[in-house]
């Protein structure tokens, strides 16, 4: 039990990862797929951030009285990753809007039928 709790952050990561992927696989709606994708990416943020926390450490700002700091690097990295993620989702949504305009649907199976006819 304790081991499971000790690795809690990893379990959450795995849960988000699998859950996100599952949504991408299982849902035919293009927006829902993007939601799944977003959740899937979130798992990565957690994967990076959590090992950066040093128990008992403080924010990595040099100040008197503290000599244990958390690792600042993951925060920087994940900030970048979040920006990338936002851009991806924005572009994806823009594409969905255009697809809706062109086809009148954003359900993948219907799209598939439409394209087979074309």
């Amino acid at each position: 039990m304790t081991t499971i709790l000790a690795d809690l952050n990893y379990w959450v990561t795995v849960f988000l990862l699998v859950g996100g992927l599952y949504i991408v696989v299982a849902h035919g709606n293009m927006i829902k797929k993007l939601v799944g994708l977003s959740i899937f990416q979130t798992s990565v943020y957690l994967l990076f951030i959590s090992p950066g926390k040093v128990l008992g450490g403080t924010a990595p700002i040099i100040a008197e009285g503290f000599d244990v700091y958390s690792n600042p690097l993951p925060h920087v990295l994940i900030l970048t990753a979040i920006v990338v993620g936002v851009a991806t989702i924005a572009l994806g949504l823009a594409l969905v809007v255009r697809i809706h305009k062109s086809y009148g649907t954003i359900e993948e199976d219907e799209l598939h039928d439409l394209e087979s006819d074309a």
Partner: protein
Amino acid sequence: MIEFPPGLILILGALPVPFLRGPVRTIWMLALPVAAFVLLYSLPEGNHFAISAFGQQLELLRVDGLSKVFGYIFLIAIFLGVIYSLHVRAIEEHVSGLVYSGAAIGAVFAGDLVSLFVYWELTAISSVFLILASRTPEALAAGMRYLIIQVGSGVLLLAGLIMIWHETGSIAFEHIGIESVGGVLILLAFGIKAAFPLLHNWLQDAYPQATPTGTVLLSAFTTKLAIYALARGYAGTEELIWIGAVMAAFPIFFAVIENDLRRVLAYSLNNQLGFMVVGIGIGTELALNGAAAHAFAHIIYKALLFMSMGAVLHRTGTVLASELGGLYKSMPFTTVFCIIGAASISAFPLFSGFISKSMILSAAAHEGHYFVWGVLLFASAGVFHHSGIKIPFFAFFAHDSGKRPKEAPLNMLIAMALASALCIGIGVWPSALYAILPFHVDYVPYTDSHVLSQVQLLFFSALAFTVLMRTGLYPPELRSTNLDSDWLYRRVGRSILQYCVQTVGSMHSGIYDLVVRRCKRFVEQLYRHHGPHGIIARTWPTGSMVLWVAILLVTYLALYFIDIF
């Protein structure tokens, strides 16, 4: 002095042809072989033109007796071919003809296996257009089969040369022999192009499908290039004697019952190659001289025969023996030229075949190969039968078909006249040809005894033909398809799965039956899955794609972890 590969003159010279028109094009195309001929004439023996590519030194211009005689005849052949095809409007035929001949000439002067291979493949690729240019579905299919087989030959050559390079560290194209695996592979590659028995059928399959002008060029280069390569790499290999004997004998049976006269010529081409292969297999100076001389003479008279049949095809639209006859009335010149070609291939005294074929026969007798000698003599009689008599007889005489086509176009007649003059010229003055052979010649073809023997042989063959015709025993010309080894891949290959189902399936049952049924469905499923709407080809929903990702991830994880446990 300019030292430049003559083959490249033709290949590069072909490039501007699409942009030239009218007489300028005619003059240009005729000037190319002439220029190459003059150049070749001036070249002394030795290696003259090397480039480095693929990290190797490639010798593109190795001039010696053997390469020179093949170079000359190839240039003569393309010159005649260009004249013969001047009336053709389709540019791609002219271009591919020139490139094809240039590649064959380039291959002859290649001093190393890599450049030989490059030219080898180029002849395959450039010549297929001469077949495709017929623009019929049959020609398309035959052309594709031809291409696959020819390219396959090149691939074998490549595999062999890599092995030899590995073993010896040299890519020089000298005597190869069949002692190493690489040598056997290369022999196989040469054998495909030389139409060895059972590897031969592309020839009878493809040549009759080419355009009237295309066949003339095809008959000259591909197989004779292989003969040259065999003479260079496998002279004196005893197996070749037997292969050649079989080659000389078996196609004539097919030729007798074949109705398509161009296919008859293709079979007789095959048979003539057999003589040359025997000569190479014997490998003495006389035999090799004979093989080279026979190749030289053969290219001209075989081209002449194909030219005459091409003229018939051009004018009447058919070369089926059952549809022709009586054409001598309206095509007298073509008839005469055809008879000259027929006399040459039959080796009548005073015609070119006589002075070259007899060298090979003499060499066989000298070396004590009596059985082979007998086979070749039989083949000589047979040649007379199907090429000497059958071709002119059924096309121009026999029963009158009622067809009254115009005489062949002027350019065709000129080409045929030139070829005829060469056939007779070589037959009457053999010393000119003997002078350019690779080895010194002290062979005298015209002795009383030899002339008499040959004339007896031929006249009694003619007697046999006459007797068989008059007694009604000669097989009638029937419209038919005659099976040959191509049946193996055109029919057996296709029905092998169904066959499995029928025979094996009836013997066994249960599980085995299931397996076989699966096999049968495989072909249908290939299209179902790979065809435009097949499962592998169609647009997949994103979800299933991602599912694949997940499956693969799990697979990899499992594989890695299994490893450490």
